[in-house]
């Protein structure tokens, strides 16, 4: 007979930061789109041939994005504080609590991440490592924190390009910093899509742990325990 156990997985502070970050990041991206609309020059294409433009007219129309630059800035420069503070709280907590040991990738993580990707694409049938976060997760969750830092830095560079001229120059100039800021936003959207797909795959027990902190595990009972 297997023995059920409740195992503590995600500490309260991490769960709070995670769930607070979700609407904050969504609002930052949304208000960012309102600002971006005023000079919507980015596209995927070659020369005069455009595969996809950010954003098509239908997108602006559907979501009512147009002519809301001032409102977008008011929101962006309001929620930026909460976004950054939440990020600082999260990083401080993971460092002080030692949780960072589960999160920061090791040399092994990169090899392991490839296996995780192959496994998830049904191309590799081996067993994945038995840890709170596997290599792919470690890279993704640490990477997204670095992205957050990147958004703050590139954001500052386009917010005060003269006062922080050294930062703006370091990032390749005003237009480069703006593009980097935009790319990072695209990165969050990509992260979000993969994250949701993986959470759905991992199942209820895994999702519940991010809400209540505990997961249910079952262990083989052995006589010599």
């Amino acid at each position: 007979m297997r023995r059920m156990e409740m195992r503590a997985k995600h500490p309260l502070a991490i769960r709070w930061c995670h769930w607070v970050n979700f609407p904050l990041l969504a609002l930052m991206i949304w208000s960012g789109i309102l600002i971006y609309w005023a000079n919507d020059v980015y596209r995927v294409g070659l020369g005069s041939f455009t595969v996809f433009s950010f954003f098509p007219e239908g997108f602006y129309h559907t979501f009512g994005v147009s002519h809301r630059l001032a409102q977008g800035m008011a929101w962006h420069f309001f929620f930026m504080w909460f976004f950054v503070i939440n990020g600082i709280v999260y990083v401080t907590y993971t460092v002080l609590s030692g949780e960072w040991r589960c999160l920061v990738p090791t040399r092994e993580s990169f090899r392991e991440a490839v296996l995780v990707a192959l496994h998830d694409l049904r191309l590799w049938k081996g067993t994945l490592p038995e840890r709170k976060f596997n290599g792919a997760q470690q890279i993704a969750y640490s990477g997204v924190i670095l992205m957050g830092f990147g958004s703050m830095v590139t954001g500052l560079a386009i917010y005060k390009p003269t006062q922080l001229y050294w930062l703006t120059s370091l990032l390749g100039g005003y237009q480069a910093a703006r593009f980097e800021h935009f790319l990072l936003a695209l990165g969050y959207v990509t992260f979000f899509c993969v994250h949701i797909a993986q959470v759905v795959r991992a199942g209820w027990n895994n999702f519940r742990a991010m809400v209540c902190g505990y997961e249910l595990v079952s262990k083989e009972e052995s006589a010599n325990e």
Partner: protein
Amino acid sequence: MSEAKKQAAAADEAATGMREGEETPRTAAAENNATAATPANPEGNGRKAPDPITEPDLGASAARNEQVRRQMRRQSRRGFLGLAAGALAGFGAWEWLNSRREINGTPWPFRETLEVNEQLARDFFSARRLSPVFPARRISADRLNGDLGLDENVDLATWKLQVHGLASQDGSLALTLDAIKKLPRTEMTTELKCIEGWSAVVEWAGARFTDFMKAYPPETVSGGPFSLHHREDLPTYVSMETPDGGYYVGLDMESMLHPQTLLCYERNGQALTQEHGAPRK
């Protein structure tokens, strides 16, 4: 095995099946961390636990597993209620924020935050930090960005800059373009960064605003003599308006005192054209 026990065992398997992906039950970490629901050895004397395969213990295990599940459900309910309360509070906060009394078209919490941001920017402002200058070959192609405030064709021969808030006489003055051109000429090739997100490298020529202030000192807060070094005694903002009143901008005094702030009358070696805000911007 009795029917009831088979069901319990099946339920066990089902519960195990729920847990997929990266989690596996039989890890060393699990053994170490598993304290929440592990019953203590009643004797506490390090004796081996009873053989779990025997029938009565199987029943005890099933009961204990059921207890763990119940505890998990309790914990889970607490977690989801907390999340729902948080979501509700967040939604309420959002509604509250956007229904506040507006100051100049923006709900006051956002407006106040913008003011705080501005105060911070002013506190950390330094006129010594300069916008990078570019070589002439980096000058951007012409760009026209709308005609807001440029509706009226300005008669350059009769145009005068209306200045208010000066220290002298009645505080007002009308200046010809020639009067501004008589001030020391400053040239620079810098990047104009529009709040909309585009930018253009332009070669500017004009009078530094500080030179303008020295020639036409503003009224001070104290009413005493004007000095560029007593910033707190200077007006807080400088506002500018196009001749037709269609475009208006307010600028903080710190920015106006920056050495790269010009009253500009030439752009890329040419007098400003009507589309670029002639005769002066």
